[in-house]
């Protein structure tokens, strides 16, 4: 492989694979980055996107000149509403998150451990920005699906025996979708569910620090 060449799925293919996790009628919260792209691949399924700053039924980005300062998503980007949108305050928004009403959250991560621990909010010694709503989401929603590259820029596994970074949640991750394939958090470690096109189980094992069961 050429340097910089990444084997397996690209960002859009990872998003497309993640979209297959969603079922018609689900209420879902999508994180920033690749998870945002998942909305492009839901097809005919009626998926209602929650934005934790107080909205169910998030629409596309507005056309130029139609931006509304009162209508943004949790990433502070301008968005639009749908004909079934509902607005509410932040306490109500996190009531539905904490209360388990949101079926799934799809989010990025820095590290995932084989017991489902998730780290995605801070790197000690670097700039600390805060956890936003990530801790509430992973503690509250029905299913937590992580979408991320299998390895970091240095080539080291992001799927670990134990997280080295401060946790966002303990034992919260259900499924991990990486450029190499799909893994579930299972008894005793991670279980390979699916390999990306052109990737073998042995290649996933070789790129993974976590125990594969």
């Amino acid at each position, binding site marked *: 492989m050429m340097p910089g060449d990444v084997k397996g799925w690209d960002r859009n293919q990872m998003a497309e694979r993640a979209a297959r996790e969603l079922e018609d009628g689900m209420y879902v919260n999508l994180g920033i980055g690749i998870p945002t792209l998942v909305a492009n691949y839901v097809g005919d399924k009626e998926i209602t996107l929650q*934005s*934790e*700053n*107080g*909205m169910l039924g998030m629409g*596309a*980005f*507005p*056309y*130029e000149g*139609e*931006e*509304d*300062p*009162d*209508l*943004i*998503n*949790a*990433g*502070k*980007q*301008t*968005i639009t*509403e749908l004909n079934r949108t509902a*607005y*509410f*305050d*932040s*306490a109500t*928004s*996190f*009531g539905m*998150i*904490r209360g388990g009403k949101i079926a799934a959250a799809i989010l990025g991560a820095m590290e995932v451990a084989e017991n489902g*621990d998730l780290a995605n909010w801070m790197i000690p010694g670097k*700039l*600390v*920005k*805060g*956890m*936003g*709503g*990530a*801790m*509430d989401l992973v*503690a*509250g929603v029905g299913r937590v699906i992580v979408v991320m590259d299998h390895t970091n820029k240095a080539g080291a596994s992001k799927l670990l025996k134990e997280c080295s970074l*401060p*946790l*966002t*949640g*303990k*034992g919260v991750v259900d499924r991990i979708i990486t450029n190499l394939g799909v893994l579930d958090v299972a008894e005793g470690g991670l279980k390979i569910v699916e390999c990306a096109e052109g990737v073998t189980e042995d290649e996933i094992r070789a790129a993974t620090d976590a125990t594969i069961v």
Partner: protein
Amino acid sequence: MKKVYANATEALDGLLQDGMTIAAGGFGLCGIPELLLQAIKDHGAKDLTFASNNAGVDDFGIGILLQSRQVKKMMSSYVGENAEFMRQYLAGELEIEFNPQGTLAERMRAGGAGIPGFYTKTGVGTQVAEGKEHKDFDGETYILERGIVADLSIVKAWKADDTGNLVFRKTARNFNPPAAMCGKVCIAEVEEIVPRGTLDPDNIHLPGIYVHRLIQGDHEKRIEQVTTRKRENA
């Protein structure tokens, strides 16, 4: 009782003190009480603690009070958009208490609703849980979080009547209702004060009982991240 004041400075008269805790509504720059923040800057009250989801940007929102060194501590969930915040924090000039976003919202709501504390799963097993009471319910572990009661709340709404009944617009509602609820005194700034009887009583988002003072003013409503899509060619 008259709740309507001429401007933000008059509405704040007699309420500001050094070292006080202020709960502020808004998410990012959306729905922030920009006129009241400017008036607090002009007043000069210092050593302030702000319970606010974010800290604004360098030159707008709470950021203007960071620039003038009036803030001692922030209780927030995310402060990533403010370089001056980072500089003061890394230099040890500013305290930050990170709260998970939903925990912060519920702490405000609870404080305003007479609930001194509540148990939540959010943050169990993380730094957030350190030093907090843990308790098991039905086989799951929860931590105790305290309600917030602020000395003063400042919020922004779209419309009000002169009794302080508030209506918000789209996602600009966000933290404004819980922030308003948790203050011993709450000041709301709105885009328009309408005559009594104009607002639909079935569609009041925050009843006027929570609002003690009220101003109408012109808002810049700055957008933090303009994101658009291209029109498809016909």
